C-alpha cells in the first residue's frame, strides 16, 4: 500500500508515452470516478460526504477540487486522513487508474459540457470508416471491425473452411449440427452465394425459432414451477409455444416486445397477444403459507421492472428500489414511477397451492390451431380469494389447460415510493404516476400512461437503449461476448463498447430494417468477421475483443444434449407442447422436497432440452452443470466454466451413454468396414472427417473393446441396457458395445461440444 504513489508515477510515465491518445472523459475518466468515488460523491444524496459530488459537472466544477490542487493532493497523499479513496474504503483504486486521474488533472481536467453517458444519447448512424484493405469484407460490419484492427496493426483471419463454417452457423441458428448430407451439399455447391443459401435455409428452419427462444426463455425466467419453498406447479408452456412461433414467423421486434409487454391492451388484441403477456408472469410466485400478500405483490411488480430494465434498457434498475442509484442517474422515485406501470395487475400476493395464479385464461383444446372465435380476446375471471388454514388467503388455481396472462385492475393500485424498498414503508406524501426516467429519452404525449405506452416508449426509434441493448445481445449470441461485454449493464458502471460505432450502426440498421430480427441475424452471420477462422492465436487478445478471428465457443447446455440425441438418431423433433420429464438422477426432487419426480417414458425422453421440465428450486442438474441460467431472475449472460462434473456427465450420464449406443447402431447400419463406420460417426458428430492418425487410434480402440467384451459378454449386455430404448436384437451385443464405447469417445471430444 505504501508504495503505490511510486507505482502510480511509473505508470503515469508509461501513459504519457501515449500522449497521442488524449484521455476522454466519458470513456476513460467517468468509469474510474464512478467505481472509486461515487459511493460517497455520487448521485445518491443520502450517502454523499463532504457535500462533494463528482457525478454532476456543474457541481464538480463549482467545488473547485480540480483546480485548487485538492483532488491532486488527495490522490497523491500518503496521510491516511487525507488520501482518497480512504484506506479503510473497501474499493481499490488501481494504480493505473489513479495515474490516469492525475494525468487528466494535469492536462486540464477536460469535462465536456455535454457529458451525458454515451448509452443515454440516441445512437446516430455513423459513417462507414475508411479502411486500407478494401478487398476484405462482405458487409458494413466488416468495415468497422477492420478499421479497428488496422488501427492496431492487426490483420483479420482468413475465412474458416466451409465445413467448419457450416457447423458454426448451423449451431448458432438452430442449435443442431449439420448432417453429412447438409455438409456434402454445401461442399459441393461452389456458387458464390452458397453460404447465403445455407443461411437462408437455416433461418427458415423451424429449429431456428426453438433455438432462439432459449436465450429469451432464460432472460424471461421461464419455468414450470413457482420457484419458492414447495415450488408448486404452473402451466406456461403455451407461452413458450407462442414464443417459438413468433420467432419463426419473424414478427418484427417492436411488435414482438409490444405484444409481450401489453398484448392485453393493444387495440387489435386477441387470444395470441394475450398469451404473449405471459412474459410478465414468468416471475416466481410465492405460495408459502404464512406469507404476507402485500409483500409479495411488491416483489412481483419489482421483478417485472427489473426484467424490463435488464432486457431492454441494459440497466440495473433494482439498485434504485431502495435508494437513488449509486452510479446511474436513476432516482428512487424513477423506479417507483416505472413500478406504477406494472402495479395494476389483477393478481394475488400468494399463489394457489399448485396451478396457475390469476389472472389466467383457458386454452382451447385446439391450441395452437384456434378457430376464429377461439382466437378472440378473453376476459379473465377476477381474483377470488378463499381463506384456508384459519388465515392463509389463496386465490383460485388455474387448471393445466390455462395459461397466465396480464390483465388490468379496473381501479389501479396506488403506487408510492417504498422506503428501503419495503412493502410496509410507503411514503404516502406523494402518490406516484406511471412515468419513465427523462434521462432515458422523452415521452410522447400521445402515448397512453399504461404498459402499452411504455412499450411504445421502449420501441421508439429515438430510444437510446432498446435497439443497442438488443443488437448487443445478438452479437453476444454469435461471438460469446457482446460489443458491450456487460450485456446486462449499459450504465456508467458497465463496460465501454469495444466498437462503439459498430454498435450504433447495428442499432440504427435494426430500426432502418423495421426491427426485422432475421435480417439482423443474417447480416451478422454473413459478415466476413463472423466467417473468419477461429484458430489464430493472439495472446494479447485472448477474449477476442478486437475480433481478429472468428468465434470459437463451447455449445450451450441445450445444444450439447440436443446434438447427442440428434447425431445418434434418438431426437424426437416435435415442436412445442407441455414440458417433458426425461431421465434424472434417483430421488432428484424427493431428496430435498416433498414432491416426487415421475419420469416420462418412450419418445418423450428424447425431446430437445428446451422442453425439459424446469423445476426452479431443483433445476435439471446436467443443464446446470453446463452453466444454464437458473431461471429464478432475469439472466442475459452466463459464464462458461469447465469442471470435472461436465466430464462425468458426458462420459456416464444415461442420456449420453444411450446416445452413444444408438450412434453405434447407426454406425453398424453403414454397410462398410469398421474404419469407414468410425469415420462416418466422427464426421457426423464433429462435422469433419478424421485424420488418418485419429482414425487409426479409434480403430485400435474398437478392436481392444471388442476383444474385451468378447471375453466379458456380461459387460456388453449391461452396457446395452443403459437407457430405456432396447438395443437392436439383430446386432451382436459384443460388437455393438464395442462400437458404443468408440461412439462414447467421439461424443466426449472437446470438438464435439464446440463450435470452431
Amino acid at each position: 500500500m505504501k508504495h503505490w504513489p511510486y507505482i502510480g508515477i511509473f505508470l503515469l510515465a508509461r501513459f504519457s508515452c501515449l500522449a497521442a491518445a488524449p484521455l476522454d472523459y466519458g470513456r476513460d475518466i467517468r468509469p474510474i470516478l464512478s467505481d472509486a468515488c461515487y459511493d460517497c460523491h455520487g448521485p445518491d444524496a443520502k450517502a454523499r460526504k463532504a457535500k462533494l459530488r463528482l457525478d454532476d459537472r456543474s457541481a464538480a466544477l463549482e467545488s473547485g477540487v480540480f483546480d485548487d490542487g485538492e483532488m491532486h493532493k488527495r490522490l497523491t497523499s500518503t496521510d491516511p486522513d487525507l488520501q482518497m479513496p480512504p484506506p479503510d474504503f473497501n474499493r481499490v483504486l488501481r494504480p493505473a487508474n489513479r495515474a490516469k486521474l492525475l494525468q487528466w488533472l494535469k492536462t486540464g481536467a477536460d469535462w465536456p459540457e455535454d457529458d451525458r453517458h454515451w448509452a443515454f444519447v440516441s445512437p446516430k448512424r455513423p459513417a462507414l470508416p475508411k479502411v486500407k484493405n478494401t478487398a476484405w469484407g462482405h458487409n458494413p460490419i466488416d468495415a468497422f471491425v477492420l478499421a479497428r484492427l488496422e488501427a492496431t496493426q492487426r490483420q483479420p483471419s482468413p475465412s474458416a473452411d466451409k465445413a467448419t463454417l457450416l457447423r458454426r452457423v448451423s449451431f448458432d441458428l438452430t442449435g443442431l449440427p449439420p448432417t453429412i448430407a447438409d455438409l456434402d451439399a454445401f461442399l459441393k455447391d461452389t456458387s458464390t452465394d452458397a453460404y447465403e443459401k445455407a443461411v437462408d435455409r437455416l433461418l427458415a428452419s423451424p429449429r431456428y425459432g426453438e433455438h432462439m427462444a432459449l436465450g429469451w426463455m432464460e432472460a424471461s425466467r421461464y419455468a414450470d414451477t413457482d420457484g419458492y419453498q414447495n415450488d408448486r406447479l404452473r402451466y406456461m408452456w403455451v407461452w413458450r409455444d407462442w414464443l417459438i412461433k413468433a420467432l419463426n414467423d419473424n414478427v418484427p421486434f417492436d411488435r414482438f416486445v409490444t405484444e409481450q409487454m401489453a398484448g392485453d391492451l393493444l387495440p387489435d388484441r386477441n387470444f395470441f397477444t394475450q398469451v404473449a403477456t405471459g412474459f410478465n408472469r414468468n416471475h416466481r410466485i410465492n405460495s408459502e403459507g404464512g406469507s404476507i400478500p402485500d409483500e409479495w405483490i411488491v416483489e412481483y411488480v419489482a421483478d417485472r421492472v427489473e426484467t424490463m430494465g435488464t432486457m431492454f434498457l441494459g440497466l440495473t434498475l433494482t439498485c434504485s428500489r431502495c435508494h437513488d442509484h449509486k452510479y446511474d442517474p436513476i432516482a428512487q422515485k424513477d423506479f417507483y414511477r416505472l413500478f406504477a406501470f406494472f402495479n395494476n395487475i389483477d393478481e394475488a400476493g400468494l399463489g394457489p397451492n399448485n396451478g396457475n395464479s390469476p389472472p389466467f385464461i383457458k386454452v382451447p383444446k385446439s391450441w395452437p390451431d384456434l378457430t376464429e372465435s377461439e382466437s378472440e380476446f378473453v376476459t379473465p375471471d377476477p381474483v377470488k380469494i378463499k381463506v384456508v388454514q384459519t388465515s392463509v388467503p389463496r386465490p383460485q388455481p388455474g387448471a393445466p389447460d390455462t395459461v397466465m396472462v396480464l390483465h388490468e385492475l379496473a381501479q389501479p393500485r396506488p403506487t408510492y415510493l417504498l422506503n428501503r424498498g419495503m412493502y410496509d414503508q410507503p411514503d404516502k406524501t406523494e402518490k406516484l404516476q406511471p412515468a419513465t426516467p427523462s434521462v432515458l429519452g422523452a415521452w410522447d404525449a400521445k402515448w397512453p400512461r399504461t404498459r402499452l405506452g411504455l412499450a411504445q416508449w421502449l420501441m421508439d426509434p429515438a430510444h437510446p437503449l432498446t435497439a443497442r441493448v438488443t443488437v448487443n445481445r445478438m452479437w453476444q449470441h454469435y461471438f460469446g461476448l457482446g460489443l458491450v461485454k456487460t450485456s446486462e449493464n449499459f450504465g456508467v458502471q458497465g463496460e465501454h463498447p469495444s466498437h462503439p460505432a459498430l454498435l450504433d450502426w447495428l442499432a440504427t440498421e435494426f430500426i432502418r430494417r423495421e426491427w426485422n430480427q432475421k435480417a439482423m441475424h443474417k447480416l451478422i452471420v454473413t459478415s466476413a468477421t463472423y466467417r473468419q477462422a477461429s484458430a489464430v492465436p493472439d495472446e494479447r487478445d485472448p477474449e477476442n475483443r478486437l475480433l481478429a478471428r472468428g468465434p470459437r465457443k463451447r455449445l450451450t447446455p441445450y445444444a450439447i444434449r440436443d446434438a447427442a440425441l440428434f447425431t445418434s438418431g434418438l431426437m424426437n423433433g416435435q415442436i412445442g407442447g407441455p414440458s417433458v420429464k426425461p431421465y434424472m438422477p434417483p430421488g432428484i426432487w424427493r431428496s430435498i422436497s416433498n414432491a416426487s419426480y415421475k419420469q416420462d417414458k418412450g419418445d418423450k425422453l428424447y425431446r430437445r432440452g428446451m422442453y425439459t421440465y424446469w423445476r426452479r428450486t431443483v433445476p435439471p442438474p446436467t443443464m446446470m452443470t453446463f452453466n444454464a441460467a437458473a431461471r429464478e431472475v432475469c439472466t442475459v449472460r452466463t459464464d462458461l466454466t469447465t469442471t470435472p462434473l461436465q466430464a462425468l456427465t458426458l462420459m456416464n450420464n444415461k442420456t449420453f451413454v444411450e446416445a452413444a449406443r444408438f450412434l453405434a447402431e447407426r454406425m453398424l447400419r453403414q454397410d462398410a468396414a469398421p474404419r469407414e463406420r468410425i469415420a462416418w460417426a466422427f464426421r457426423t458428430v464433429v462435422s469433419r472427417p478424421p485424420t488418418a492418425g485419429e482414425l487409426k487410434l479409434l480403430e485400435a480402440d474398437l478392436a481392444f473393446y471388442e476383444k474385451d467384451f468378447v471375453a466379458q459378454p456380461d459387460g456388453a449386455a449391461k452396457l446395452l441396457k443403459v437407457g430405456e430404448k432396447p438395443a437392436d436384437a439383430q446386432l451382436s451385443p459384443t460388437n455393438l458395445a464395442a462400437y458404443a464405447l468408440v461412439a462414447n469417445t467421439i461424443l466426449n471430444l472437446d470438438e464435439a461440444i464446440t463450435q470452431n
Partner: protein
Amino acid sequence: MDPLNEILTQQSRRTFLERGTLGLGAMALGSLLNARNVTTEHRNRIGGLQGLPHFAPKVKRVIYLFQSGGPAQMDLFDYKPHLAARHGEEVPESIYPAERKTTMTAGQKSFPCAPSTLNFARHGQSGTWVSEPQQHVAKLVDDLCVIKSMHTEAINHDPAATLFQTGSVIPGRPSLGAWVSYGLGSENANLPAFVAMTSNGRAKAGQPLYDRLWSAGFLPGRFQGVKFRGQGDPILDLYNPAGVTRTQRRRMLDALNQLNREQAGRFSDPAIATRIAQYELAFRMQMSVPDLIDVKSEPQHIREMYGPDVATPGRYAYNCLLARRLAERGVRFIQLYHRGWDAHGNTPKQVGVQCGDTDQPTAALLRDLKQRGMLDDTLVVWGGEFGRTIYCQGKLTKTTYGRDHHPNCFTYWLAGGGVRGGITYGETDDYSVNVAENPVHVHDLQATILHQLGIDHERLTYRHQGRHFRLTDVFGKVVKDVLT
C-alpha cells in the same frame, strides 16, 4: 497502442488467468502457468484470490450444520423457567405485535403462552442450560458458544434460508460456501472445495431445500457447491455406466486426451487444456470418492459413536461422518442441511424426533474432530433459518402445543477454532420473543464466519451488474465477543 485497446487487452488477460487457474482443479493449466497464484504460505492451495486470506485465519475450514425448518429456541437452549406460571395466558401485544405474525396464525383469536414442556438441566463447567432431548450435545457444552440473540427479518422459510446462505432474500447471489471457495480456493486436488449434503429424518415431512442454497450465484459456476447425493451415485454420474470397466475407461481417456491435445495444437485455446485436465480430475474423483464415502472402513467404535444411521446415505449421521472425512481431506466448506424442524403442531414431540436424528451424530462429529485435534482449525456452526413463537399455534393443552415461525430471536451455536467455548452470548426477553441484549444479525454471523477464515467480509467482493457485491450486502459486524 490506443489506451482502450490496452485496457481491453489487460482485462482479457486478467480474465484468462482467473479462468485458467482458479477453483476446482484446473490443475493442469495451473501447473502450466507455474501455479503463479500459490503463495508461499499456502503452498498446497489450488486457486483462490491473491491477497487472501486478508489476515491470519483461525480455522482452515467450516462445517455448517444447517437445521432446516426453524428449530424452536425455547425448547432447545433458550430456557425460560419463569414462563411455566404463565401457561395459557395471552402473550401481551406489547411483547408480540401483530404485524409480523405470519398469516398462518395472524387470524387466530388468541395467542396463549406455551412455555416449553421439555426438561432443562445445566451442564458442564459452564452450567449451560440444555433441554433433555439433546443429551449428547449437552456433554459438550463447554466447547460451545451458544448465541441466543440471533435475529433475521425473514419470516418464511424460503427467503429466510436464502438469506442465511447467500446474504440476501433475492435469489441469484452466491452462497457462503461459494464465496469461501472463490476467495480461498481448494486444498485438495481431487475433491471440490465446497460440498453440500442434505438429509431427511424421521419427521413426516420437512421443509424443501433449494439448489440455490449452495449455488455460485453470479460467481463463475465452478464455485458452486458440489452436491453429495444420498441416492444413486454419490456425485452425479460419478460411476462408469454398467458394464464399463476401469481399464476400458482409462483406454478411452487416453484416446480422448490424445485427440484433444491434437485439437489444442490446432486451436491454441487454453480452454482445451482445461478440459483435458478436468477429464483427468474426473477420473481421479472416480477413485477418490468411493474411498471417501467408505464409512465401513471406520472402526466400530467410531461408527457406534455416530449412531445407528451412520451407514445409511441420506441420513444426518452418515453426513456427519462424511463431513469429518471430507474435512480430513482438506475440503474447505462442508455444508449440511437437515430437514424437518418446521414443527407447527405437536412441537415438543417433534423436537424430540429431530433430536433423535441429530443430537448423537452432532455430538459425535464434535468429539471426533476434537480427538483428532481438528476442532482447533475447524469452525462448526449449528442453527436454522429462524426460531419459533412462544405463543401457541393451534390448540394448547397441558402436554403439547404448536409453534409458528419467529424471526425476532433464535439460537445458534458455534464451536471450534478461535471460538470462546462454554459461554452463552446474548439474551432474550422473558418470553423469548425479542432480543434483550447483544443482538446478532444473520449478516453478523456471516461476517464472523468469514473472519475466522481470515477474510474481511467487506473486502471479499465481486463485480456484477456494475456493483461490487459481497456476502453481507452493506451490513454485518464481526461478533468479536464470541471469539478468543
